[in-house]
């Protein structure tokens, strides 16, 4: 076991034991579970020399010993999958996937695995900090005297996600895999703690869907900041993945310039959907509804409807209610998922649907919508236009959002307070 801080600055000796410089940095190749050390940077008279790991016969807290006499003193060129531990990782911020927070690297722990040295863990505990300050020994003595432990905390390299710009440049090998597996709300909280450029770096590495989910969890101002910092093409792709009602709210907040550019880059029908939603007043049912719902013609049978659900499910916001429309697209009835499943497969749905569905008009106020949702205990309420055409649905979560205190018009600065979604 070796800590990076123990190796840095130690002498490098050649085969004969003659000093040729000091350890300036270690290089690891990213990609494996535990990245192997592939090279060492030696500082010699203010110049940095890169040595391949093959030429190093030993490295420990006493320094490095070389196994070859021939030294390749070519200047170090970073390969795309390589990072320098001290320069690129030490003291930087990383995401602790397990703990779901952003922490700073105090030290890096290297271990011998199958005969070669690998980066295995990041030291984020007090002991690492004390070691770097050069007072770990005395501190431990005092702590022992007081019968106290020095807190140690390591994060397995597997559970680490580096977010720094310098490392993001090698993002091919930093796929932010761990981050993508977090719950969008947790991911949003983490992204909220990062600086602006780091945020864009993280978003860049996520797939469109994960990025859309995470952005959907953020406060409106943060959403706008991020979207405007992204490449317009990417922003358009992410918007397509978001629920249209969320996307419409977000697009409405963008600057005129970005809005036009991004909408132009979105797929045509998605962009139209968003634009249509934007036309509704924010405080009406139309303004908070989503157009992603399940509607089927009333001539279908139960079995056909279930098949249709299987096709549509990935897009719809809720499938607990299936709306039934007549040939003109007017709302004719509603089915619950339970109705569908317990009915015989061959029965036509119009036979057993609830044919007096509760609905609200697109122009209904959000207060009215919330009241309807609450009174009838609905998970979603359909929204219809003046002729009764089904335009969208308002889900219960969106209805609840309207009850929460509205953020003040101007963005509140958040120094001292990382209130991820508090403004919503």
């Amino acid at each position, binding site marked *: 076991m070796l800590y990076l801080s123990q190796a840095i600055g130690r002498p490098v000796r050649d085969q004969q034991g003659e000093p040729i410089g000091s350890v300036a940095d270690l290089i690891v190749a990213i990609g494996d579970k535990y990245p192997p050390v592939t090279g060492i940077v030696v500082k010699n008279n203010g110049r940095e020399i890169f040595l391949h790991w093959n030429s190093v016969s030993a490295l420990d807290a006493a320094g490095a010993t070389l196994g070859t006499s021939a030294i390749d003193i070519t200047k170090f060129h970073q390969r795309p999958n390589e990072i320098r531990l001290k320069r690129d990782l*030490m*003291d*930087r*911020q990383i995401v602790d996937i397990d703990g779901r*927070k*952003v*922490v*700073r*690297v*105090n030290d890096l722990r290297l271990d011998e695995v199958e005969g070669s040295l690998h980066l295995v863990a990041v030291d*984020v505990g007090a002991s690492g*900090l004390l070691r*770097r*300050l*050069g007072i770990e020994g005395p501190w431990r003595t005092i702590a022992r005297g007081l019968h106290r432990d020095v807190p140690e905390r390591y994060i397995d390299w597997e559970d680490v996600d580096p977010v720094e710009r310098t490392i993001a440049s090698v993002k091919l090998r930093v796929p932010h895999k761990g981050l993508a597996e977090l*719950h*969008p*709300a947790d991911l949003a909280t983490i992204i909220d703690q990062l*600086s*602006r*450029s*780091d945020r864009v770096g993280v978003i860049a590495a996520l797939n469109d*869907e*994960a990025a859309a*989910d995470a952005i*959907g*969890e953020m406060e409106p101002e*943060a959403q706008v*900041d991020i979207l405007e910092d992204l490449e317009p093409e990417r922003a358009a792709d992410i918007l397509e993945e978001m629920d249209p009602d969320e996307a419409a709210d977000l697009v409405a907040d963008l600057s005129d310039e970005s809005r036009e550019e991004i909408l132009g880059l979105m797929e045509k029908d998605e962009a139209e959907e968003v634009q249509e939603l934007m036309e509704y007043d924010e405080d009406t049912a139309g303004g908070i509804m989503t157009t992603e719902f399940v509607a089927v013609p009333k001539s279908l049978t139960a079995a056909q409807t279930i098949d249709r659900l299987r096709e549509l499910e990935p897009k719809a916001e*809720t499938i607990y209610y299936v709306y039934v429309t007549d040939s003109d697209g007017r709302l004719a009835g509603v089915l619950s998922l339970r109705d569908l499943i317990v009915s015989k497969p061959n029965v036509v749905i119009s036979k057993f649907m609830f044919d007096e569905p509760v609905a609200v008009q697109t122009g209904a106020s959000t207060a009215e919508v919330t009241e309807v949702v609450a009174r009838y205990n609905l*998970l979603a309420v359909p929204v219809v236009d003046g002729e009764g055409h089904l335009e969208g649905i308002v*889900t*219960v*979560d969106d209805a*609840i959002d309207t009850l929460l205190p509205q953020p*003040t018009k*101007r*963005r*509140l*600065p*958040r*120094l*001292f*307070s*990382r*209130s*991820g*979604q*508090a403004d*919503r």
Partner: protein
Amino acid sequence: MRKPVFALSPRAANRVRLAAILSVLGPGLVSGFADNDAGGITTYSVAGAQFGYDLLWVLLVSQIVLFFTQEVGARLGLATGQGLAGLVRERYGVRWAAFMITAMLIANVGSIVAEFAGCGAAVTLMGFQSWIGALIAAVVVVVLLTRGSYKWVQYIFVAVGIGVSLAYFVSAVMAHPDWGRTANSLVIPRLSSLPGYWVAVVATVGTTITPWGQAFIQSYVADKRLGPEDLVGERIDVGFGALLTNLIAAFILVACAAAVFSAHTQIDTNSPGAVGQIAGALTPLAGSAATALFAIGLLAASFLGLGVVPLTSAYAACEAFGWETGVDWRMREAPAFYGLMIFFVAFAAIFILIVPAGSLVQVMLTAQMVNCILLPFVLVFVMRLSSDRTLMGPLVSGRFLLIVGWLGTALLVVLSATLLVTSIV
């Protein structure tokens, strides 16, 4: 991954937004406004009461240096999106970060002690014991930390701040100061060999340009997610903040010069009567109510400082060491952050209990001097970081800004050295 229908973050409901207090104004304005805390008001008052108009030039120089240091701090925040302490750690390693934070924390503890002393002095003027002031100050910090309702607090702060400024402005005018002398002293430095002269100079500079102000402006800009495109706006904000701060300071100083200094009253900063004497600056305006008015203003100014300095200090330290920071966290989740806060409050409170009530003014002055002496240790990092092209990109300090910045830093070192030499000789 689907969003669960009933997903509401349990914490989202009652989060605390401390920064709401500062939301009305820009970072530069807030930072400038908070410079006129208890230490600030007292220092400017003593400077005017002891040396008349002579120290006005110090205010002008301070204002120029304040503008440039705040501008650099804001620019660092704009370019990197990071706070000062975290940036120092990334560029220069743990040891330098620990060094800078230590210097900053010592200065900040001094500032917090000064706010407590301000509360103490204010309540003694009202006829209470000074420990009541310390108690009030401690309660204020705890309330600020645990209660989130800053909406009304900020308005009270701003109102009281403006009220105090107006009071001094009117009082200064009513005292019929020597305006020619005022203008003259503003641009022509008058040196003096009187005892206490350099103490007053260093304290005046130290209360205007502060280590915490430097950390504050950068973190604030970064946390507001402002970027390089906001450079012009930030410069205006910072410039306006520096101007406003020093305008208020100048009126305090002139009011004291006209009402107290001209009356040939000797001020002994170590005497119990010192607070009452500098309160006399408000006599032309308030007559016999001057003391009460000053006490209220001083109390409000202390609260202003208490609302910003302890948080900024704990924030900077935790940022560099990667600890949870901010009032969103519960006590158990962010032990270092709350631990530091408890330390600040406890230290300042005990200090005020030990110090005799008569020395409170001297305590406030000394805290400002400590700020000035430790400031170069922070500014050196700020200046070096701001000239790092890889870090700053297009926002890197140009030659002119670098020269001015380093000159300002050098000036502070010379000032501190002069103070040390003159106090020994």
